[in-house]
């Protein structure tokens, strides 16, 4: 199978009280293109840390990460930023929207950075918002949106520039059950269109909706199960 992500011997440690605290230990992982994968585990298991390494938001201490055929473990900071812009999309737990920008303006940012003309970028961002059912909220600022709506704007921003992979860090953690369902539906809909998604969650119910469930404990993968019963 064509792997879009390939991780070998990934190690990440932090300094803690003069000694090294290993959060990820010699971890190997491959993610095929188009897969919806959930990373689960208890708090402190290293799931978010793994997501940050894969999403190029943090540097591993050791190991190799290859994304879409590029070894990204050693590339320069500017190249990492450019890589994130062109290949990756993010959905953060707390939505991470820029408060003074409207929904459309939040979504348009990566498109403008890619150099798209304003009109084209605008049309594309509205289309992204439309995809997740927020076409009537394009001029609302985050403070004028509910939590679920803000998270969906965050998803629209993540998909606007057609990334290869979407990383979602506990996207439903701050949402009620009903709103969480809406957000999950948005992810499932994207997945149906062939989008690769890596989602960190500690909700088993939501993990069961994905193609594959990777369970982490103490920085190691203790279980990696293809979910044949995933609802698609």
């Amino acid at each position, binding site marked *: 199978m064509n792997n879009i992500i390939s991780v070998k011997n990934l190690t990440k440690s932090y300094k803690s009280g003069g000694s090294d605290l290993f959060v990820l230990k010699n971890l190997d992982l491959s993610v095929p293109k188009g897969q919806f994968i959930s990373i689960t585990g208890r708090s402190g298991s290293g799931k978010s840390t793994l997501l*940050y390494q894969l999403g190029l938001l*943090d540097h591993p201490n050791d190991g190799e990460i290859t994304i879409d055929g590029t070894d990204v473990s050693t590339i320069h900071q500017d190249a990492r*930023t450019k890589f994130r812009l062109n290949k990756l999309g993010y959905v953060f737990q707390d939505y*991470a929207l820029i408060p003074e920008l409207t929904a459309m303006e939040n979504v348009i940012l990566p498109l403008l950075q890619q*150099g798209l003309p304003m009109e084209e970028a605008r049309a594309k961002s509205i289309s992204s918002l439309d995809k997740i059912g927020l076409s009537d909220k394009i001029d609302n600022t985050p403070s004028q949106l509910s939590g679920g709506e803000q998270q969906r704007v965050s998803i629209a921003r993540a998909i606007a520039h057609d990334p290869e992979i979407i990383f979602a860090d506990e996207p439903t953690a701050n949402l009620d059950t009903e709103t969480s369902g809406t957000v999950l539906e948005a992810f499932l809909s994207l997945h149906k269109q062939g989008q690769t998604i890596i989602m960190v969650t500690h909700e088993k119910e939501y993990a069961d909706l994905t193609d594959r469930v990777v369970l982490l404990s103490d920085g190691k993968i203790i279980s990696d199960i293809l979910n044949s019963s995933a609802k698609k």
Partner: protein
Amino acid sequence: MRFKHLITSLKLGFFLAWRQVRGSSFGTTALIVFVMMLTFLNLVVVRGVLVGLIQSSTDLFREKYSGEIFISNLPKKSYIENSPSIIEIVKNLPWTESYSARYVEGGTIEGTYKERVDYTEDANIANGQFTGVDPILEEKTTHISSMLIAGSFLTPEDTDSIVVGANLLKKYLPIEAPGLLLLENVDVGSTVRININGNMKEMFVKGIIKGKGAFDDRVVILDSVLRTLIGRSDYNVDEIAIQLKPGASDTLVKQALISSGVDKTARVQTSDEALPKFLKDIQNTFGMLGNAVGSIGLVVASITIFIVVYINAITRRKFIGILKGIGIDSIAIEFSYILQSIFYATMGVLIGLAILYGFLVPYIDAHPINFPFSDGILVAEYYNTFLRAGLLLIATLIAGYIPARIVVKQNTLDAILGR
């Protein structure tokens, strides 16, 4: 390719900056703009007032004493030789609006001498420069009567009258200093005795003059009377002040006088050249002081902007991290902060300019600040003002960039997670 990327980042920086300014609180924006406006005014006005103090002195010197061209005796001569010919040349110059030829001689003036009974006490006496003028020509040249604070000016018939400078009278200069002799109980209507080169004459005080200029220390007398007292029968004068017609160039007129050979027997100077050395020194010193104060203002402005941008960037550290996280270039983020700084500075400068040229300059021109030695005006030449505005913008640009750079350089993930 790199250039295109840079342009894209700058455009995005502009997009972010404008939205951030638009989204910021009006009160905060107004306060920052107000601080920038004060800083700009501090840069321009403090120097402008310091320079204006001396500028008004030099203006007074030109308008009320020297004229635009001032002819005086050569260094080793006691008067201007061949004065009648020079006066004839001056009269016939096409640029001459008016002129005043003056005799100047040192002497004393004694008041209340008729009431003096105790000759063991010092006489009520003052030393002064007696200046003999044609009252009509002097009035035309320096509008000398406008400086009268009491009485009236001389007429060609006032052979027994003088006008006394206020700085010779204790009533108008109530200070005590070693060696300083001032007349007491002398005012308009008083009879005084003047003594020039041993020739004494009883005179009537017709007016008191005070214009914060050279005449404040002088005694004005008819030229014919002084000429007789000093025995100058050759009509050679000591100084000639020339006012030029509007638009005439003082340097060209000076050159024309030199070409006519006037410099052979007299010193020909423009008003600026004729300024007393102490005034020139003060002018330079105040200019330097103004620049020093202005430089401090510039540093304060830079620190203010630095703090404002730094606090702004620090409080928005998480959002800067998010922007970096979603792939926004550092240049775009830094540029957005630089643009915000420039926005605040530009607004401050524009409002400052409006206040400066719309209110302060015309108001202080109409109501000069009353300093002892001059009527202080606000000098705000366009060149210097815009130079300072440019300096402020450059300082702002740097002060905006540095804190933005510091925050943008921080670890992306740490910024997003707020750790």
